[in-house]
């Protein structure tokens, strides 16, 4: 028994050394995707360049996702006019996708909701599909922050991260030099 215990400890040590990165995902380019929203409009991540984007994966069958949603709606309402975009990507597959829009309508949510019915995008961002799962993406389309799951109080940290990113975006716009006028023909 001691042998196995030692093995577990060795493993934990090894895991904590090279693999454990307290800033997981930061600085990596977010995988590009194009998905349709619940009103049939195509939405591409690349169109979010220059904005702060929070991608949140959820599903109709995910109870913690339902509990998190009102907080995300408040976040969206607070920052949507400050260069912030919230993309709620439903991981419901083809079989349950019909329930997505009625659920959103029944709660009165107004944030954009995208459909990933063949699970391609969620498989890229979060292969084990644990929901909810969020990634905050900067104006350069690089990942600023990742968060898995939801327990009460998590929304505080989410808002702090969004606020920081939005403020950084505003500061960058303030100090950026004015665009050069177009050359005369």
């Amino acid at each position, binding site marked *: 028994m001691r*042998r*196995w215990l030692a*093995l*577990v400890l060795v*493993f934990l040590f*090894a*895991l904590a050394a*090279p*693999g*454990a*990165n*307290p*800033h*997981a*995902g*930061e*600085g*990596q*380019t977010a*995988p*590009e995707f194009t998905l349709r929203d619940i009103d*049939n409009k*195509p939405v591409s991540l690349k169109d979010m360049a220059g904005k702060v984007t929070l991608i949140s994966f959820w599903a109709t*069958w995910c*109870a913690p996702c*339902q*509990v998190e*949603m*009102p907080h995300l*709606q408040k976040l969206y309402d607070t920052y949507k006019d400050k260069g912030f975009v919230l993309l709620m990507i439903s991981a419901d*597959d*083809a*079989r*349950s*996708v*019909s*329930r997505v*829009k*009625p659920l959103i*309508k*029944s*709660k*009165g*949510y107004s944030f954009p909701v995208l459909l990933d*019915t*063949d*699970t*391609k995008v969620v498989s*890229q961002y*979060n*292969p*084990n*599909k*644990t929901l909810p799962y969020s990634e905050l993406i900067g104006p350069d389309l690089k990942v600023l*922050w*990742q968060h*898995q799951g939801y*327990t*009460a*109080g998590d929304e505080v940290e989410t808002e702090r991260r969004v606020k920081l990113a939005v403020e950084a975006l505003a500061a960058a716009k303030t100090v950026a030099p004015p665009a050069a006028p177009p050359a005369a023909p």
Partner: protein
Amino acid sequence: MPPRATPSATAAQALILVLGVLTSGVAAAGEGDARPEVSVSGQDDLEFRYWRDDRTLPDFPEEDHLFDYWELVNRINMKVDRGPLQLGVQLDTVAMLGAYYYLNDVRVNEFDLHADGVTFPLPLAYANFDKLWLGYQGDTAQLLVGDGYIAFGRGLALSLVKNTNIDIDSSLRGAHAKVTLGSWDLTAVSGVTNAQQVWQDNPNKQQIRPDHWHMVSGLRVDRYGLGPLNLGAHSVVYSFADRADLDAQPWEGYARGVDAAITGASVEAFGVLGLDLFAEGDLFLYPGGEVLGVEDNAPGYAVYGSAAAYPGRVALLVEGKHYKDVERVNAVVSRDLYEVAVGPTLEYERVITEDSGAAVNSNDISGVRIRADVAAKPGVLTPSLTLGLFRDRELGGLHFNRAPETIIHPVAGVDWIADSVHVLANAGFRVDQRDALPGGVDLGADRMAHVDLSLGFPIGSAHGEIGGDLRYFMWGENLNQQTDFTLLTANAAVHLGHGVSIVGYTDWTDDPLIDSVGNINENLYAAGELQLQPADGMTFKLFYGAYRAGIRCAGGQCRMLPGFDGARLSATINF
């Protein structure tokens, strides 16, 4: 002679573990690369499971716990992005530690990890690059070579997607192409099914199985934005491998005849007279019917439709289905615990039992589901009513009944989500009413009352959650008359903040069909778990105790999952 381990075997098995860890370390190191256009990221899912088994053998001391063993399962997903190109790999690893003993100086493995057709140098370990893909994401074209996921329409003709709720990760290994030309999408796929060989959540003691390369080719055309309409049409062909031929190569599927051909079309309308509408119809032809157990190659068909309306504060969803001989297409692959084509079931899948699971996969069923949600206080209080009505005409196979059934299943629910308090609750009553046999023999009805609840509330600066479900099942008449049973699953959690949670679990059931025994007494299971999130993208869970076996359904598929008794350490790390 008492059992003992040999250092060489232990070292070799531990090597697999270290390799897995090093791989994740290398990937993490890539983050600091000076070339920002290249992005390396990934996810590592690891589980150490200690399986307790009270069996023993004569002359072995009971305290040696002869058949106890550790199971290490590791799954690394890693991808490299560079502009529009992406390279991805998934490495699955399993090692059984201590799953052997010595009898008269001869090592005896407690089980064969590898089924016929699977080879690996170590008897109690296995490693496999289960998924591998190269993708290109352009403005008008997406290409993927290797393993990908795909669904057409509502999944009736083709649905090879991840279903991690019940530990299913089957991909299509081949080529995927999607070309967008204005408002047209053309999607073409061809390849072979690639089921995961290493179970991530379930005991691999049930054996690593060989891949059976079933050929799948499909084509779908979508026309978006034709006024308020989207139109789509697709065809899919399947050629199933001979499971007995363990030497078969993936490409042989293209030389075999077609066993199943499905063609269908869908139409979707947005906001027409205030309605969102969807309809799909598919025709299933079985030229290789004998492989799938179809008499006379009889064709099948499926029709699914949905309509949603949003009058005032009400969201109304009506779904209907009529499936005849469509599950046949899954007949061969379901032996490897996955399915290739699954339409919407319209079931409340959370309360499916061993009995009602047959209706989920019925070959002759019609049904409708009506659900109304009312935004009593928008975003805060949402009561709902759901009514499911089904007519299941299939007998035999998984069905316990010997006469067709009419199923009535009303469910009432409420969601109340305030700032720090939430209540999500549902209660229902399901009746599977059997037709009387000729001569007026009454077979009665299976009936089930059920309640499920999720409750969250503050406890000082911490936060508490209570959840679970309760079912009481009453059998009608059937050939193997069962005993009425109760099934309770409950959990209570305290989230202490700073990523620390403590969770307690309990199951109680006297269901005679459950193939497991509780750790407190025969019917009662208890477990505790410590959850830690020391940093974003990093989760550790330490579980000790037991939970029951039983059927679990998600995403239109059901699996009989084994129970668990022991300890489990799991880690998920994003890098």
